[in-house]
């Protein structure tokens, strides 16, 4: 369909992450600097090598969902860049990676710093409602689509996630004990991640005892707010091969949305995940069976199930049976999933955390939670109409 696949000219050369706090006592800027400087050093680069900055949030300092923008970071670090960009979401929380890769492929930059900072935990010590849909505006959000939702007391995104899950249960016979395997698998992995927020064991009984928030989703189906920053360095492939460690190539991206940008007018049991998956697999000769590890968005557990299906890692409608018992998605299984504990247990780093973990695993630097050596991983983030994916290959 396309004669040039730009992402193949780009690789990940370094990753970094601040402390993950609930809350952290560090400022949003300090967290961002910790993550950014670690990522630059991890690539074996100096700050002078960075000539672009990207992130999927506001351009300037905003709310706790977007506390530091690229303008603030490049000023604080004293960077001299040819290109920088922010802007909410695009194709999901991985939009910054895709935008940064485009800037490199377009010839604007050689090394782009991509970061994602979030301070929803400390913000919630002052106002519990801060991460709800209402937090983006004064009073109830009345922007384009939300004006059709907020009058009905749709205050949290869980209203949609719960309705998607209900319909998936109805259409495909998915059961609560199957869905529970996402939360249980994440917790088992988080127990081996020293940075994870929740590290105590969780049983199926614990899962069923957790508070029902919005049927059929329980508290343990929802991710945990944190304060953290995650950063990665993207490099042009020739420059990447001169960096410190084996480049992790971006083999293919998925960013498609063939449906309305809406939370109720889209496919309720597919969301954007199937559009994204079709696009990603059309841009590579690799197949779903080649994927060795999956880091899939778990802002809510049901979204992980959609990504398993949408990326073709299991047949459509079969995610419940695929994860049943948890063996396939365990660290020693055929498709290790969310190996750092995901957002459900490790913390809601919001998107870039999945890329960070995929890279640590590909470089065999994941410590106690390291899975078997492998070369191909997939990361995906988003829910509803938001969705982006990256197929990553270590050279």
């Amino acid at each position, binding site marked *: 369909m396309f004669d040039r696949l730009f992402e193949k000219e780009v690789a990940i050369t370094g990753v970094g992450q601040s402390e993950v706090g609930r809350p952290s006592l560090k400022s949003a800027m300090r967290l961002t600097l910790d993550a950014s400087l670690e990522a630059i050093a991890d690539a074996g680069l100096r700050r002078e090598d960075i000539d672009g900055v990207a992130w999927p949030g506001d351009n300037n300092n905003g709310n706790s969902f977007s506390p530091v923008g690229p303008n603030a970071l490049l000023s604080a670090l004293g960077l001299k860049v040819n290109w920088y960009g922010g802007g909410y979401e695009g194709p999901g929380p991985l939009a910054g990676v895709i935008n940064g890769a485009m800037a490199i492929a377009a010839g604007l930059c050689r090394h782009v710093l991509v970061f994602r900072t979030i301070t929803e935990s400390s913000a919630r010590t002052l106002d519990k409602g801060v991460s709800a849909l209402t937090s983006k505006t004064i009073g109830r959000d009345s922007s384009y689509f939300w004006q059709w939702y907020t009058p*009905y*007391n*749709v205050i949290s995104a869980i209203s949609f996630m719960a*309705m998607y899950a209900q319909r998936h249960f109805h259409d495909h016979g998915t059961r609560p004990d199957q869905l529970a395997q996402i939360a249980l698998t994440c917790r088992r992995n988080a127990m081996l991640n020293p940075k994870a927020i929740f590290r105590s064991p969780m049983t199926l009984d614990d899962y069923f005892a957790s508070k029902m928030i919005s049927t059929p989703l329980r508290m343990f189906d929802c991710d945990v707010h944190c304060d953290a920053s995650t950063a990665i360095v993207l490099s042009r492939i020739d420059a990447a091969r001169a960096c410190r460690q084996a480049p992790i190539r971006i083999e293919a991206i998925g960013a498609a949305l063939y449906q309305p940008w809406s939370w109720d007018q889209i496919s309720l049991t597919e969301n954007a995940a199937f559009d994204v998956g079709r696009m990603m697999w059309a841009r590579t000769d690799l197949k779903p069976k080649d994927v060795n590890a999956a880091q899939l968005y778990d802002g809510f557990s049901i979204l992980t199930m959609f990504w398993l299906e949408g990326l073709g890692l299991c047949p459509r409608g079969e995610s419940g049976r695929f994860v049943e018992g948890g063996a396939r998605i365990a660290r020693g299984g055929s498709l290790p999933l969310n190996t750092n504990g995901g957002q459900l247990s490790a913390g809601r780093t919001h998107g870039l955390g999945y890329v960070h973990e995929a890279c640590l695993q590909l470089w065999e630097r994941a410590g106690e939670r390291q899975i078997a050596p492998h070369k191909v991983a997939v990361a995906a983030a988003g829910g509803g109409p938001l969705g982006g994916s990256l197929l990553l290959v270590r050279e």
Partner: protein
Amino acid sequence: MLQIYYCAGCRRFFHPPNPICPNCNSFDVAPRPVSGRGRVVTFTINRQAWTPELVEPYVVAIIELAEQANLRLLSNIIGCDPSEVAIDMPVVVTFAQFEDVWIPLFERAGDV
């Protein structure tokens, strides 16, 4: 009376309203009365009081209106025990007035 945007170009309803039809891009669009009858496509019983004034439980649902496949509206189901709500349950519109705005809500309908 519930009204939904209708495109005279392709003779289809669409929601939410816009000055153009997302299907055929005709500007020949306008609100048109509908029966107010439909079925529950999916729903959730919300059990969390997100703000101090909210009383839980309440039911959030996506309704498919009878006029057209996939013509959907998000609303609340009121007037019955939340545990009675089910996918495919027939519903009919009712309205709640807030100052000069009438919000369409839905309640259980007899079998149609």
